[in-house]
């Protein structure tokens, strides 16, 4: 089959290096360009000191970096600090205003796909949608584990999308929904922290069998496990495995994909997430958009090993190239020009 899938990188992937000041945005974009990941996703609250005050100089530098490396700004991850003030929640109007502020900034950065964090209420996106539509950007709910398209929370969003029928609303699924095997980096860290091997094996096996993780924390506790083992059991309740064909349910509203990953092995595959099947499903569904790398393994290895996000992202893109090459690519001018209105 033919496909129109592009490759990109979320700067989220380099959080370790940004945190420790060992890489700059420019360094990260250079890496992306080198591996052919031309679409750039930014988390402004991570990358822009002084956010939400962003100077014209910063924006100019951003575009200059894009031009220098032949990359393009694509996505902008927003947060919604509903609990900004102690003791009270942002009002509906304040929440909508927060999204509009992000739309304005996204326009300046040239990023047309806005990641709406999963906690964003449907009515907030509903009331921000006209503004986004006028600005020519999309507000895409990040469907993140443990959510899915039939979850009560997401159904509220679907109701709004059905009613509004705006091109500005849609989804940005996170491939962390499809964790088929328990991430090895997580279980190995627990072992480094002194977890009992038999209890780690129990957690991993229960997860890998797609067994009942309800009561797994209790089970580990009853077996004499301490905080490390119980914590690992808790992680097993946070990861989710679903059939990637779930993606087909809302493909017509899917305009971006966050390619979460924990560990690219020496064999060039993701240890936990079946990207081969995911890519095939995306191609089958006619997905037109980006596979945007989200490396999240650093937190599981940083205690004992040097983190090499560049190597991990590079490996993921080698895998994407391999998996996409099994399908015929159709030249595309890219998702930034696809939205009408």
């Amino acid at each position, binding site marked *: 089959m033919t496909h129109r899938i592009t490759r990109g990188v979320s700067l*989220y992937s380099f*959080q370790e290096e*940004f*945190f*420790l*000041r060992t890489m700059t945005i420019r360094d990260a974009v250079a890496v992306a360009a080198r591996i052919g990941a031309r679409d750039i996703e930014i*988390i402004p*609250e*991570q*990358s822009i*000191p*002084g*956010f939400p005050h962003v100077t014209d100089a910063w924006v100019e530098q951003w575009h200059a970096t894009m031009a220098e490396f032949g990359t393009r700004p694509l996505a902008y991850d927003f*947060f*919604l*600090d*509903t*609990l*900004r*003030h*102690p003791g009270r929640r942002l009002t509906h109007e304040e929440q909508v205003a927060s999204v509009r502020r992000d739309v304005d900034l996204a326009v300046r950065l040239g990023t047309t796909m806005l990641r709406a*964090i*999963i*906690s964003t209420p449907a009515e907030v996106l509903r009331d921000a949608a006209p503004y986004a539509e006028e600005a020519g950007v999309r507000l895409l709910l990040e469907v993140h584990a443990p959510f899915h398209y039939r979850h009560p929370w997401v159904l509220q969003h679907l109701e709004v999308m059905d009613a509004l029928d705006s091109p500005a609303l849609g989804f940005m699924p996170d491939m962390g929904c499809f964790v088929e095997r328990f991430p090895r980096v997580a279980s190995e860290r627990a072992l480094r922290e002194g977890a009992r091997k038999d209890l780690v094996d129990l957690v991993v096996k229960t997860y890998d069998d797609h067994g009942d993780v309800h009561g797994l924390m209790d089970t580990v506790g009853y077996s004499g496990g301490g905080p490390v083992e119980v914590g690992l059991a808790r992680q097993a309740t946070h990861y989710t495995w679903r059939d990637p064909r779930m993606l087909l349910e809302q493909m017509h509203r899917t305009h971006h994909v966050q390619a979460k990953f924990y560990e690219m092995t020496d064999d060039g595959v993701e240890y936990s997430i079946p990207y081969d099947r995911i890519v095939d499903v995306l191609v089958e569904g006619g997905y037109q958009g980006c596979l945007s790398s989200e490396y999240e393994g650093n*937190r599981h290895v*940083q*205690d004992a090993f040097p983190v090499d996000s560049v190597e991990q992202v590079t490996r993921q893109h080698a895998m994407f190239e391999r998996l996409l090459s099994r399908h015929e690519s159709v030249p595309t001018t890219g998702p930034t020009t696809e939205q009408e209105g």
Partner: protein
Amino acid sequence: MFEKYVIVPGTLRNVVESGRATAYELGVRMPYYRGLGLSMVEDVSVTVDGVRAEPAATTFTVHGNSYPLTAMGEVVDDRWELGEVATVRVEHPGGLAAGVHDVEVSQRLRISYMPVPGGGRARAEVELSA
């Protein structure tokens, strides 16, 4: 996440005023992958050798701006940036003794999409710097 980077080595020192140690301070990072408005930093508590600093005796400084820890809830126009080393100062007449101290930092971050507070604890043996 980032626990091992929370307590910054080489940053524990006494604050000396007019020749007398009046406080100690420590460099602390936030264990989170983005910057956060200070009004959502609910607590940054330093414990040295088992003695937990009183909030009222604690001052928090980022990029030159200082705030009483107890007033952070109102600070909606400043942030603790990703990986930024904040200085936490604790009034402590006489300062800390020379040598290695058992330092624990406990943070509580109000992160809107999380059902429980973020932050957590970090602990390290830290030598007092001159």
